[in-house]
């Protein structure tokens, strides 16, 4: 984004396009909220073996990300996992 873009008001057409692009990625991934919840719980289980995480603050979603191949963008699973304590495991 150039400096000029910052001052230019974004038209609602662009807003619609950006919203749709994100929406269609998750629509096409065919991920129901139930499946997302299961993925989330499994991630919590796995990560918790190694460190203490904030399960409440964990957020996962399917978005798209830039890629060199495949026409620029590919779907990606984005996870934001707040760590409460990086313990060195009690093994």
């Amino acid at each position: 984004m150039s400096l000029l873009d910052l001052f230019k008001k974004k038209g609602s057409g662009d807003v619609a396009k950006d919203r749709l692009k994100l929406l269609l990625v998750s629509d096409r991934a065919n991920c129901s909220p139930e499946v997302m919840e299961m993925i989330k719980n499994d991630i919590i289980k796995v990560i918790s073996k190694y460190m203490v995480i904030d399960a409440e603050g964990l957020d996962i979603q399917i978005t798209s990300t830039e890629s060199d191949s495949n026409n620029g963008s590919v779907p990606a699973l984005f996870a934001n996992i707040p760590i409460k304590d990086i313990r060195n495991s009690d093994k």
Partner: protein
Amino acid sequence: MSEVIVVTSGKGGVGKTTTTANIGTGLAKLGKKVVMIDTDTGLRNLDVVLGLENRIVYNLVDVIEGNCRVKQALITDKRCPKLYLLPTAQTRDKSAVTPEQMIKLLDDLKNDPEEFDYIILDCPAGIEQGFQNAIAGADRALVVTTPEVSAIRDADRIVGLLDAHGLKDHEDLIVNRIRMDMVNRGDMMSIEDVNDILQLNVIGAVPDDENIVVATNKGQPLVGDGTMAGQAYMNICHRIIGEEVPFLDLNGKGGFFKKLSSLFKGEKK
């Protein structure tokens, strides 16, 4: 052998029936023999958009149930001798027909000695039985959308279902109801934006033209007349039969001074 084209959209109210009426009429004007089938059982409207509502004797469900032969149910359009309409029943619902019965009916029409060039199916909104019936025997799909988030989202879902049905690479997109004044001020997605999102071949773009309302009021499709929408629909017909036609400049009016100024600026249309 006739080609079966389904006109579909997912969302209601984007212009499926208007598109079917205009493309069917346009293809007939180009000399093709066309049958249009309304598959929106219980909520039929193709008849009224074409101005043929007073001519209905038998309908699709009568043919399916064996109450009449398909030839008896076909209505000919006196203004357009190569055009036929098979209306559906108004007092029944979508469950009156199954996909297998639709395929059988289409096979009968394909093998008819009349040799129809195109069979065009007007699909109901939604993805339930009516949609399944309409796509069952289709060779090709025209997906109608408008530059709005709801219509585009539904179109994407429909394309997914058409792909799964084996119609991948046989789908084209029609972007309907474009308002260039809104696109130019950034408040409506452009044809390029819609194409970018759906990644589907755009076979035509139709402007939001008040003449469509006038044409529907009269029951006379406007395809091929001097209006912007009429020209846009005729261009789509040319592309359907495989001709290459440049896209219409939807910026409209195209008055003398506008043309002159764009000539000086060297603008690419």
